[in-house]
């Protein structure tokens, strides 16, 4: 019961943002998308899945949209951290995570769901290293 209420609440505060057609996204590469003050890396994987994660590596802020994509992972272009683009988790031996965003595709149009409130996202809380 309580859970359902919460879900409902969440849905209300999510905003769906249109970022372009599926065909506009480069295959096996990342695209930099800025929504308000959020910078998001959007990937279209080899088998056509579309994923959106925060465009900053938790290590030293490398731009993940420019990383090398392999399956469901992206390798940060700065120091080669390996990060999952499905759940945002940094892979061992390094630790940390990046924010992920739900993606919706309707009639070849791509939408990213983000929270209305600034800082309202919640599946990752690794602060960036100091000095970034």
């Amino acid at each position, binding site marked *: 019961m309580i859970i359902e209420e919460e879900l409902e609440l969440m849905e209300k505060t999510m905003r769906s*943002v*249109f*970022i*372009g057609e599926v065909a*506009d996204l*480069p*295959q*096996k*590469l990342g*695209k*930099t*998308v*800025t*929504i*308000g003050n959020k910078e998001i890396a*959007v990937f279209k994987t*080899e088998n056509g899945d579309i994923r959106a994660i925060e465009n900053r590596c938790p290590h*030293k*802020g*490398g*731009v993940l949209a*420019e*990383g*090398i*994509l*392999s*399956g*469901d*992972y992206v*390798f940060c*272009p*700065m120091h*080669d951290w*390996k990060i999952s683009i499905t759940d945002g988790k940094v892979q061992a031996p390094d630790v940390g995570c990046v924010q992920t965003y739900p993606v919706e595709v309707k009639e070849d149009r791509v939408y990213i769901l983000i929270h209305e409130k600034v800082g309202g996202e919640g599946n990752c809380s690794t602060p960036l290293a100091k000095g970034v």
Partner: protein
Amino acid sequence: MIKQKLVLIGNGMAGVRAVEEVLKINPENFEITIFGTEPYPNYNRIQLSKVLQGGTSVSDITLNEWEWYEDNKIRFYPGESVTSINTKTQSVSTDKGRIESYDQLIIATGSNPFMLPLPGADKEGVKAFRNIKDCEEMIEYSKRYKKAAVIGGGLLGLEAARGLLNLGMEVDVIHIYDYLMERQLDRTAGKLLQVELEKQGMNFILQKNTAEITGRKHVTGLKFSDGSKIKADLVVMAVGIKPNVALAQEAGIPVNRGIIVNDYLETEIPNVFAVGECAEHRGIAYGLVAPLYQQGQVLAKRLCGIRDEGYQGSVLSTQLKVSGVDVFSAGKINEDESTKVYKTYDDWNGVYKKVLIENGKIAGAVLFGDTKDGNKLFNFIKNESRIEEYLESSQSVISEVNTVADMSDDELICGCNGVTKGSIVEAIKANGLTTVDQVKGCTNASRSCGGCKSLVSDLLACTLGDQYQADQKEAICGCTTLSRDEVLAEIREKGLTHIREVMNVLEWKTDGCSKCKPALNYYLGMIDPLKYQDEKEARYVNERMHANIQKDGTYSVVPRMYGGVTTSEDLRKIADVADKYKVGMIKVTGGQRIDLLGVYKEDLPKIWAELDMPSGSAYSKGLRTVKTCVGESYCRFGTQDSIGMGIRLEKKFEGLNTPHKVKMAVSACPRNCAESGIKDVGIVGVEGAWEMYVGGNGGTHLREADLLFKFKDGDDLVEMIGAFLQYYRESAKYLERTSAWVDRLGLEHIREVLSDELMVKEFNNRINEALSVVQDPWNEAIHNKNLLRDLYQTVKI
């Protein structure tokens, strides 16, 4: 057959080596017993210095493990000392009450450190540097105390001092002479050494006589004969050694300084032999390992009944095991009336070389700062070669190159163990050896001081050539178990044409990673440059974007400037663009280019269009720049048109993909203003010719380039560079710089391959094919709408 009882007193380096040699010749003949005061299996005393200096542990320096004794059925009594020898009954007795009879007895008790009989020398905190225990105690001391004094500025004292510095102590070295290592060096070299060690943090107190060690129970300092004093919590005495002969003396075996032996290591008592530091041969008691090992060999032959000419004495060579200091000395070192010297002294670089000549023959040498001639000189000294031979050999191009390939077969590689180049090469070939450790196990080379390790590895590389890489099977990354060579062979054999196909067919464990994807992309392109479609998603960001990514995610733009030459018009364009796009900084690079830093990704295509210059490829795994000096056109020393040649090379090879970045330089005289000596390909113009150097690297692993060939004609030079680059493209691992590649294959091997005219032609055909499809990436990007959208445009909402 009844076995003879062979008893060895002293489980040290010389005695055990003699036993090893005996086992090699005739393992069945003897029943062997070894007594050793120290409670360890046989270890490498030389490397105690390395233990003290850090990075090596006591267990690393064991020469023969416990099992070795068992495997060879040796009765070994560690921690047990022989207390007397009865030469009448042919037996020895020990401090554990054991009595052991012998048929043959070897005394190899080494020596004792010489302790100056100073007042206070018995205080706590006064140490020698001789065995594991001393070493461990010093390490313990360094944890509790700050100030150490080392008495003695010889080899051992300096190595101890370096160790104590590494352990965090302040160190004073007290020496009685006015320069260091006076037994091995002359005054000039000794003084140079002092300067170098002072830079490392040692403090020297020279020409001082220690009069007293102060303190109550524990040492607190030193007092000198002139009344001056210093503080010290630890005093290490390293003033010399004296042969450990007490046991022999008491048994009535004739002794002078050491136990007197003849050329067969026989003492004057039947069936009793002495070897190592405790022995005196022709008036000399040696204190270094190489001669002791030679003695061990002779002794083993003698025990096994093989007659030869016996031991003839040794020429000594010394090297100091302190990092950052290159000193070498061998043979006679001080001039007298009968000698002449050949000397060079480069004060500025701290390089000193002295060769002593007696009756026209090389009799000794001292090298400081650059010891790469050491091995060669040592061989010349032993062969009593004429000085002309050395001088000629230093002038010839071949020896400048100085690689193991040029050494003759009887030249020594490992001085400690007397192993020649020929015997190592033979062992490699006969037993299929592929690693330094295997060579060590098989030939003993580099088993002692380890100074020749790099020579051994060079020798492996140049003996095995291509195979050296094949045998070192190393998967290209964690996604596969296949090595580079295997992957290439499969690609060629199965005609694979793109990355996904390679990964599927060769059963990659993952979807690839940031290591294998770029590597596969390179290999596929190298194999079939005309058909292969470069996969930009497998490229590292810089190469995909054709600009260097900076730490904040902005990029830098470097326009090409052939040979480092520009025009006022180009400079104006660059300046205008910099203003218009508000670049963060304009910087001149080390490769003679202009770098515009802090450019946003979206602005890249616009900047390139406005600059309308080709890409400088400052980001590429390919030819970066060709740096040039002013040369003939303006410089008063220039002998050749270095700028012209630089531009020609850059225009020919720009845009080429290579396993790693390639830098070139052309200087027009040996002054080398373009720094050709540290480039992947460095050209030096000399009167009437071009010298081609390869494998240089100014990067993390600094490596001086090696002279490959010399050409009169510029066209021949360019053709050879083409062949060299293509051979590198075809045989290097992805991300292997030419420096590592040249080291791995061996210069001699590369020279041999490129000496084949037909090969050179074929390499050039293939590289020209690869060059034929090169396009300027900036030009391509600004004219291709899809590329522009996929790579450079961002979405802003």
